C-alpha cells in the first residue's frame, strides 16, 4: 500500500476547501491517505477530512505545543513527520503558503517537486502543469525517492469518500534556521485570495481610474469573490500589483472569471485561460477577449455591474 501525505492548509480555523480537492487525486483503494496539519486539528477538521477520504490525521506540534508560523521550521517539521510515517509522496496546494512550504520541503529532501499542477497521476508519478505562463501544458515525471506535487487550487473538485480517520500527534524538533519571523501583518480576513477564489472579477483599461474599482469590490463582497486587474490597471497605479492577473502577475483558475474592460492580451490570457467560465464585458465587440470567452457582453460595465450586484444582493438576502 502506498502512502500519500497531504499538507493541509487552514483559513479562519477551517480546512481550505481547495485542500479537499487535492485529496481526490489519490482516491483509490491502494493508497493510504494521511493528512498533515500544522494548525487547527479540531474535531471539525478531522470530520471534514475523513469525509473526503483521509484515513489518518497527523497534527504536527513541538514540545511547546502548536508551532507558530515559521515557513522553514514548518517545512522542517513536515520533513520529520514524513520520515517518521514513511511518507514519500506529498501533495499540497500551490497557494502562497503551499509554494513556500512545499518548496522548502523539496529543498530539504533534495526532492523533485512539480508546482502548480492541474492534474496528477500517482500511478506513474506524472503531473501536468502549465509552461510559458499558461501558453503550453507539459507533462512531467518525477524521479527519485520522494515525489512532491503542488496542485493548482480549484483544479480538482472535492469528492466525498466517507470513512473514519485516526487523529494522532507528532512532536517535531524545532531547529535553528537563520530566519527570525519578526511580524506577520494580516490583511483583511474577509479578503479572498486571488489564486483560491471561486469567482474573480477583474478590471482593465476600461475601469478608467482607481475609484471606479469600487464597483468591482462591491460586487466581490456580495458573493465572496476576489478582485483582479490587468497589467494596464496596475501600471496606471489604480490598484496594487498583488491584484495583477497574467504573465507577470498571478495565474488563476476560478470557476468564473469576469473580465471588465479588459482587451485580453496574450499575457493576460496566460494568467486566466484555465478558468471554468469566462465572462467578458467590453464596449468594443472586437476586443480580443470577446472572441475567447464563454459569454460576451457588449455593454457598459458601469451600467451592468451595479445592477448585477443589486440582483445578487436580492438573491442572497
Amino acid at each position, binding site marked *: 500500500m502506498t502512502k500519500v501525505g497531504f499538507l493541509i492548509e487552514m483559513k479562519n480555523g477551517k480546512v481550505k476547501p481547495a485542500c479537499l480537492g487535492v485529496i481526490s487525486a489519490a482516491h483509490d483503494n491502494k493508497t493510504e491517505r494521511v493528512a498533515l496539519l500544522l494548525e487547527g486539528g479540531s474535531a471539525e477538521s478531522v470530520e471534514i477530512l475523513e469525509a473526503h477520504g483521509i484515513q489518518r490525521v497527523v497534527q504536527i506540534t513541538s514540545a511547546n505545543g502548536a508551532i507558530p508560523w515559521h515557513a522553514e521550521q514548518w517545512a522542517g517539521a513536515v520533513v520529520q513527520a514524513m520520515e517518521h510515517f514513511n511518507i514519500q509522496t506529498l501533495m499540497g496546494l500551490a497557494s502562497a503558503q503551499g509554494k513556500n512550504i512545499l518548496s522548502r520541503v523539496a529543498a530539504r529532501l533534495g526532492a523533485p*517537486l512539480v508546482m502548480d499542477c492541474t492534474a496528477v497521476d500517482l500511478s506513474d508519478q506524472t503531473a501536468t502543469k502549465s509552461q510559458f505562463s499558461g501558453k503550453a501544458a507539459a507533462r512531467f515525471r518525477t524521479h527519485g525517492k520522494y515525489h512532491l506535487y503542488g496542485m493548482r487550487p480549484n483544479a480538482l473538485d472535492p469528492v466525498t469518500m466517507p470513512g473514519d480517520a485516526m487523529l494522532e500527534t507528532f512532536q517535531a524538533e524545532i531547529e535553528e534556521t*537563520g530566519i527570525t519571523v519578526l511580524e506577520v*501583518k494580516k490583511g483583511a480576513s474577509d479578503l479572498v485570495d486571488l489564486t483560491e477564489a471561486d469567482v474573480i472579477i477583474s478590471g482593465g483599461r476600461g475601469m478608467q481610474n482607481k475609484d471606479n474599482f469600487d464597483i468591482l469590490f462591491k460586487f466581490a463582497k456580495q458573493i465572496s469573490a476576489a478582485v483582479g486587474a490587468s497589467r494596464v490597471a496596475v501600471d496606471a497605479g489604480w490598484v496594487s500589483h498583488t491584484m495583477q492577473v497574467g504573465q507577470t502577475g498571478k495565474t488563476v483558475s476560478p470557476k468564473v472569471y469576469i473580465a471588465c474592460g479588459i482587451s485580453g492580451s496574450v499575457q493576460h490570457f496566460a494568467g486566466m485561460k484555465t478558468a471554468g467560465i469566462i465572462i467578458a464585458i467590453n464596449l468594443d465587440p472586437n476586443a480580443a477577449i470577446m472572441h475567447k470567452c*464563454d459569454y460576451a457582453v457588449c455593454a457598459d460595465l458601469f451600467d451592468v455591474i451595479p445592477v448585477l450586484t443589486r440582483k445578487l444582493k436580492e438573491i442572497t438576502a
Partner: protein
Amino acid sequence: MRIYVCVKHVPDTAATIRIKADGHIDENITFIMNPYDENAVEEAVRLKKQTSDAEVIAISLGKESAEATLRSAMAMGADRGILIKSATDHDSLSTARSLCSAIQADGAPDVIFTGREAIDSEGFQTMFHLGAFLGFPAVSNAVAFELSGTSVKVTCEMEAGNLEHVQMDMPCVIGAGKDLNQPSYPKLPDILKARNKPITVLELSDLEMELPASRVEMVGIEPLKEERQPDNIEGTVDEIAGAMVKVLRDKAKVLDG
C-alpha cells in the same frame, strides 16, 4: 560585499510559443531577461550602492544566447557575469546545483538574489534548492529588503495581502517579487559600457559536481488551446444582469455557498 544575482534568459511575454515535432519550442522568437530577475538585479545594484567595496555578479545557466540577458544585467549595473553554458533545459534541482557550484567556485557570497519564479518553467523553487545546497537561509516573494548590520530584514508577500517581516542571517538567498522595486531602464552609455564588462563562460563539465539523481523530467508538451465559443448576452441592462445571474447560479453554481 559580494552580491550574486541569478538571471534566466526566457521567451518574451508577448511571444507566441510554438512547439516543434521534437517537443522543444521554436526558439526563433525574442528572448528577454526573466521579468522577476529584473527586480533581483535592481535590488542587487541598490544594495551595492549602499555598501562600500561591493561587487554584483550576474550568473546564468543557459544557452550561449543567454549572454544577452547577462549584458542586460550588466547594463543595469552588475559588474561582471558568469555564463554556465548548457544546451539542454534543466529542472529546478539541477539549475540550483549548477548555480551553487559556479558561485562556490567564484567566491564567497554575502547575498544572492533570484526572481521569485521564471516565467517559462514556473517552478517557484530554485531559490530554496540553492539555499539548501549552500546551507543558506532563503525566502521568496520579497517585496522589501534592507541591510541591517550583519543581517538583512526582508518583507515577503504571503496570501491575500498578508505580509511577513523576517530577519535573516547573511549569507542568504532572496527571491524577488514584483513589488520589490521598479527596475530602471538602462541608459545608452550604460548599455555600451556593459559590452566591455567581463563574462566568464563555463561548461557544465567545468563545475566540480554531480547533477542530482532526483529530477523532474518533461515527458510531453503541447500548446494550451484557447477554444471557447462565445455566446452573446444581449438586451437591456436588466436583462443582461439577469442572464449573468443565471450563469453564476445555474452553470457555475457559485451562489449556493
